[in-house]
């Protein structure tokens, strides 16, 4: 593996871009939800204010917790940033740097989850335990669907590397490829599940019925909480990017020049806002599902992803 100047430039740009825009998508989804409920909602930039506010506050640790609680926020943000190198948002350099592998990406995310769930158990609170138990269970049973979706993508686009996938999708512009349309539905469900949104979880609260993701963060305060929330936002943007850049790759920068990159970024931002709006609308139009009714949702996603494989194989 050779890291050239292009790759370094890409690494900095991509990382800065994803960190900058991730909270925005969170904010958009929030506003849409508020509007759908007849409220005005927070200002668009509220997530940024929140992060800044949290960053300036002191950190509080439980007297029961151990080093796991302290290192988890750093580990989490590290993993998200390294994983995001594998997902070029608006442009992909010639050499993918070996980080674009989808299995690697999946397992990096799994590592983040491992530490988060462990931190949930660390303080000895029932909330955290319940959150990590449910998070691990749900993320486990969504895993077969994720892997089949990725296998379908790999079959269709003929590579396991995210960079090459995006490039192929941008070249072919095959938006009427039934396999890709089909696979986008389970991919969207995976996105909803992984980012802990309605109908799986509710990002607004940590009441009993939705005690999944938020409860694991209950013991965090100040800068640590800011890091955790930022990494969650980055994770959401990464998954959104997979959906966007494979389904609607219009305007994806095909060469590494300043105008192409800027157009690519702006277009990605626009597409991301539309997708975030759609996520907000989906959330508003659904009720939270019971935890044990979730397999029904997942099984539909499984069917769809399996159907994509059938289409690919029978072709």
């Amino acid at each position, binding site marked *: 593996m050779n890291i050239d100047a292009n790759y370094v430039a890409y690494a900095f740009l991509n990382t800065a871009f994803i960190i900058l825009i991730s909270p925005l998508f969170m904010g958009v989804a929030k506003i849409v939800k508020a509007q759908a409920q007849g409220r005005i909602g927070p200002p668009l930039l509220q997530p940024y204010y929140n992060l800044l506010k949290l960053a300036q506050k002191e950190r509080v640790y439980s007297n029961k917790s151990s080093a796991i609680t302290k290192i988890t926020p750093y580990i989490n943000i590290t993993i998200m940033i390294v994983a995001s190198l594998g997902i070029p948002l608006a442009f992909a350099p010639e050499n993918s740097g070996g980080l674009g592998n989808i299995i690697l990406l999946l397992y990096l995310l799994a590592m983040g989850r491992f530490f988060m769930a462990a931190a949930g158990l660390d303080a000895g609170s029932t909330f955290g335990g319940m959150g990590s138990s449910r998070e691990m269970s749900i993320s486990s049973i969504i895993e077969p669907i994720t892997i089949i979706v990725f296998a379908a993508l790999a079959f269709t686009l003929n590579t396991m590397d995210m960079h090459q996938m995006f490039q192929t999708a941008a070249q072919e512009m095959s938006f009427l490829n039934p396999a890709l*349309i*089909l696979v986008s539905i389970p991919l969207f469900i995976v996105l909803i599940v992984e980012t802990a949104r309605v109908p799986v979880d509710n990002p607004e609260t940590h009441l009993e019925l939705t005690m999944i993701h938020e409860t694991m963060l209950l013991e965090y305060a100040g800068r640590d909480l800011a890091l955790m929330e930022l990494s969650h936002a980055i994770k959401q943007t990464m998954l959104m990017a997979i959906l966007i850049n494979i389904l609607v790759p219009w305007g994806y920068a095909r060469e590494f020049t300043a105008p192409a990159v800027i157009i690519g970024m702006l277009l990605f931002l626009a597409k991301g806002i539309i997708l975030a709006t759609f996520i907000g609308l989906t959330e508003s139009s659904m009720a939270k599902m019971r935890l044990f009714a979730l397999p*029904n949702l997942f099984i*539909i996603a499984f*069917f769809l992803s399996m*159907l994509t494989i*059938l*289409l690919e194989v*029978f072709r």
Partner: protein
Amino acid sequence: MITAALAESLTQALVVLVLISGAFIVTRKDLLSLVSTYQMQSLLLAGVALSLYSVDQSPTLLYLAGLTLVSKVLLIPYIIKRIQRKINISRDMEFHYVSPIASIFITIILILLVYGAFSNILKELALSNLFYLGAVFGISLTLMGMLITFSRKKVITKIIGYLTMENGVLLFSLFITELPFIIEVLILVDLFMIVLLATILSIGMDSSVEAYQERFHQLHIEDLQEKLHLHRKHRGES
């Protein structure tokens, strides 16, 4: 003007969507959404016929699309929705033999089975890939319809199952068989359906098959048998 390649991929997408609607019907419990899904499925089928027409230019396809639109998108759902409003049931929570999750797995296996079986049967016909897919999915949809009819308890869901079966036959016929013949089959199946609907309507369809059988009991068919039985027993003892 639609190019042939575009029409082909459009048809493929529509066929896949038809199958997905089938899978939806297999798992949904909510009766209202079942009917709307059925409606959507019929609309998609009409779409398939139209997009095939854009390649084939055969007028039968156009008639077929019109027929489907009128009968299955408008008429039948309208009737079922009216009945639904009358009987006031909104969900079918009961499943026979298989749960929704199991039936999805069964569906996947069904598709594979049909594919495997057809790869032997249809080899001589030398079909293009799209037609092959349509045929396989058509038969799969028919089997899924059957699955619905035997796995649900509420009569109204069973009807949806029958209707799905019939849609499967239509899908198959669009891609494989001679059309005039299949129209006859369609009418036959539709007739069967109407008879069934009529029977159920006359007896009442507010609940499950068990209740339906009870209605029969109320016609004293079984009472009579019992009386006869008692009578014989009595004579035997004396």
